[in-house]
């Protein structure tokens, strides 16, 4: 037992220990009977100095009470169950670590996917996760240049046509007609219209 701890106990006996220190010391005192005995001896000094009368046999009273309470079941009001804590805490730590790892993996995968844009990457991931044969073929995303695949393009066109036929100016159709070229958004619809209008002339 070091002097700093004994000094803390002395200050606690006087009610002069700062709150932060007192809380920690109280827990140590609860756990360690030898610390409580030291506290008792510090309190006895004050009584002896003040010549307070001691009732013969009072020094054993604490032990008598402790012995009488030894067989009593400790209360458990509003307490976190120590057993549960003992097992839950490490598992909670592992679970948090695992979650972070999964998030990091998913994040990394998404970053990789968006950078590489390999058509098969998504399908492979799906097949690996499900551990079943992939029955769904992921449509090939846009190529590096930002041009949609032929299948996707035809879908956009059909969607746009049906939207126009139903009198709706499809915003999505309009949006997907933009294409990223050398970090610039090019309106493909306007460009197609311009090309179409240009073609007869060039054919002449």
């Amino acid at each position, binding site marked *: 037992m070091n002097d700093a701890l004994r000094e803390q106990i002395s*200050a606690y006996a006087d009610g002069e220990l700062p709150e932060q220190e007192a809380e920690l010391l*109280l827990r140590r*005192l609860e756990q360690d009977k030898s610390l*409580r005995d030291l506290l008792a001896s510090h309190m006895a000094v004050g009584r002896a100095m003040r*010549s307070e009368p001691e009732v013969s046999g009072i020094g054993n*009273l*604490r032990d008598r009470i402790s012995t009488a309470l030894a067989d*009593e079941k*400790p*209360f458990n009001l509003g307490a976190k169950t120590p057993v549960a804590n003992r097992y839950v805490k490490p598992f909670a730590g592992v679970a948090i670590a695992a979650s972070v790892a999964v998030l990091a993996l998913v994040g990394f995968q998404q970053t990789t996917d968006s950078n590489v844009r390999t058509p098969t990457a998504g399908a492979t991931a799906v097949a690996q996760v499900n551990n079943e044969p992939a029955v769904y073929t992921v449509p090939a995303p846009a190529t590096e240049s930002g041009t949609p695949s032929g299948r996707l393009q035809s879908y956009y066109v059909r969607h746009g046509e049906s939207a126009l036929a139903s009198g709706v100016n499809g915003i999505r159709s309009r949006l997907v007609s933009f294409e990223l070229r050398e970090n610039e958004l090019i309106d493909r619809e306007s460009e197609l219209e311009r090309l179409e209008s240009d073609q007869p002339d060039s054919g002449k």
Partner: protein
Amino acid sequence: MTDSATDAQLVRRVQQGEKGAFDLLVLKYQHKIVSLVMRYVRDADLALDITQEAFLKAYRALPRFRGESAFYTWLYRIAVNTAKNHLAAQRRRPMDVELDLQDPEQYDIHANLKDIDTPEAVSMSNELNKIVMNAMEALPDDLRTAIILRELDGMTYEEIAETMDCPVGTVRSRIFRARDAIAKKIDGLLD
């Protein structure tokens, strides 16, 4: 941390199953309760038995203690009732019937104890006083002043620091060293 805050924390810890916290409460209040009980019964052994019973009752009732009153007030009432019940069982009257013992604030805990000291207890007390006085005289001036201001004059550390013109941390250290030196001298004399 105030006295009542410390008690409330200890009570919570007992309610959560920490028996060591109850030992701290016993340590803190055992002398007060024994002195209180001795207002009802003259016999020291009987007073200790009743005090023990009061503490056991308090422990068993702690799950129902909601902190609406201070722990000591609650414990005080349990002790008074335990002593009264004991006297009722013996069909005797308490010694200090004129006092309102239901009120812990009105009660001077050491008022009548000297009247009921046995010759052995008086002799023991005199011996203890002599040892304590010698131990105090052997202390360096600054330690002796600090412990006297604290234990006999009841000053706070801050007041002592002001009186002695030194930091509070120094006061804390001086009181500890003085107390430690005296405790070593009287250790073994107190049972």
